[in-house]
């Protein structure tokens, strides 16, 4: 295992110390592993809290700041944070206007956030709403399973809903918008290599030199299937087709994210974006905004994912609103 770390055990604490040192505009609660804005939540503003396992940076800590999250809880690598962390985050971020928990759909994340909401409402009376993001078309949506994973759409949702909260929308409106965004976006990912979880010390899966995994999530889980390495154009098709098969993206402007998994250089992401843009154009999808870069990663995995959001006018307006975080910044 080749990593710039001190020990597998200290990865999270050291990274949080680095975030603390690098960002005077953020505060870090090192005991509870909560990253929050140095400036307290404005009275009347709904607070947005997210969190999840670490290893997906800049998600979520890199999206704490004006126009996005108010606080983020960092779990161990690929392990959902615990309810007490979320409760601390809720406590520090709530201004009285209530809190929205943004949860990616994983059994662990959902259960821990559920417990946190139960505890917060029982103990402190904070109004907690939540949205569970489940946008990954690689996984079949079904009532009898854990359902679809939450992946790239989380980034777009945090941006758009963050802007709504910043604008002063109340908890009900912010929550409704969050569900609308979740219903309007889909993602699909692939991997060229496995990632290596520091504590495991070796790659999660073995992938021969001429093979790739299609339909991976963001935790180094094996994908839906494995096949021969192909060129960027074919890979783009394998990502875009299932998304378009799942939902109709024509007739409204779309926001597209071409996301890197952590080990993929930007030059490759632009090559992929080019292929994705061509496919969407051919399919009649009108892309009006885009992001190309590492936004929701899987440690050092080489690979990428595509997220498409069918945006209505409000979402588009909120997308363009100012945002000032370590990971996403414009208009300020």
């Amino acid at each position: 295992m080749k990593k710039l770390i001190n020990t597998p055990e200290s990865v999270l604490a050291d990274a949080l110390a680095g975030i603390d040192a690098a960002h005077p505009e953020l505060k870090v609660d090192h005991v509870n592993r909560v990253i929050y804005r140095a400036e307290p939540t404005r009275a009347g503003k709904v607070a947005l809290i997210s969190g999840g396992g670490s290893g997906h940076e800049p998600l979520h800590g890199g999206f704490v700041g004006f126009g996005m999250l108010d606080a983020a809880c960092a779990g161990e690598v690929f392990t959902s944070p615990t309810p007490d962390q979320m409760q601390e985050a809720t406590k520090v971020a709530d201004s009285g206007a209530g809190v929205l928990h943004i949860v990616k759909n994983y059994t662990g994340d959902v259960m821990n956030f559920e417990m946190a909401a139960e505890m917060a409402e029982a103990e402190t009376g904070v109004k907690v709403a939540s949205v569970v993001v489940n946008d990954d078309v690689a996984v079949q949506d079904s009532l009898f399973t854990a359902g679809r994973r939450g992946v790239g759409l989380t980034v777009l949702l945090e941006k758009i809903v963050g802007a709504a909260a910043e604008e002063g929308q109340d908890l009900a409106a912010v929550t409704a918008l969050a569900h609308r965004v979740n219903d309007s976006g889909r993602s699909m990912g692939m991997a060229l290599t496995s990632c290596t979880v520091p504590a495991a010390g070796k790659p999660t899966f073995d992938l021969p030199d001429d093979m790739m995994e299609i339909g991976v999530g963001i935790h180094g889980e094996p994908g839906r299937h494995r096949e021969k390495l192909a060129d960027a154009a074919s890979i783009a098709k394998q990502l875009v087709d299932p998304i378009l098969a799942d939902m109709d993206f024509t007739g409204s402007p779309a926001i597209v994210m071409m996301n890197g998994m952590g080990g993929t250089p930007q030059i490759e992401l632009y090559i992929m974006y080019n292929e994705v843009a061509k496919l969407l154009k051919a399919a009649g999808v009108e892309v009006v905004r885009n992001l190309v870069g590492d936004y929701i990663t899987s440690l050092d995995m080489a690979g990428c994912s595509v997220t498409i959001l069918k945006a209505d006018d409000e979402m588009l307006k909120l997308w363009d609103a100012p945002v000032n975080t370590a990971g996403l910044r414009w208009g300020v």
Partner: protein
Amino acid sequence: MSTSTISLDQLIAWLSRFRDLVTEKQSYLTELDSAIGDADHGSNMVRGMNAVVEKIGAEPATAADALLKSVGMTLVTSVGGASGPLYGTLFLRMGVNAGPVTELDAAALGAALRAGLEGVVARGKAEAGDKTMFDAIAPALDAWDAAVADGADVAAAASVALAAADKGRLATEPLVARKGRASYLGERSAGHIDPGATSSTLLFQALDDTVSS
């Protein structure tokens, strides 16, 4: 030197033995989780049980309910992931069910464990055959109850429960997962033993080791 009931000290010994077993099998648990999950079940269980052993060492409990609830809370607040709330709820509910006693007989311990399992189901909605820890715990408790009905003490019940848990765990191998992270793999989840069912089997192994020695 087997035991017919279980004392507070033995409950503590059980937890400490469970910590040792998950530590010993940490890489195996992580390997199982690498195949159909995210390669952290070993470190999750070790982190949680280390916290538990430290906690109960620092704050000696005087009754089963307090002990078990503190174990549950410690797991909830130190593990995260799926196993944190699930194992946490298991122990929390066990504590509530056990009450402020200092000793449990086979029936009482069985009832506490059953309440724990119900907590797991309430949290995680798992059913038999979903390829989760349920598939080790449920048959273990069925075997436990049957043995107790036949007059078994804690040691005897623990022994049959362990055998049933292990059988249940091995039986998860061919299953296609319907719950947890492994369900994302669909058909590809078949052919691998479930990590959570394996750590749950270690829980019964630890109990058996504790009460039969």
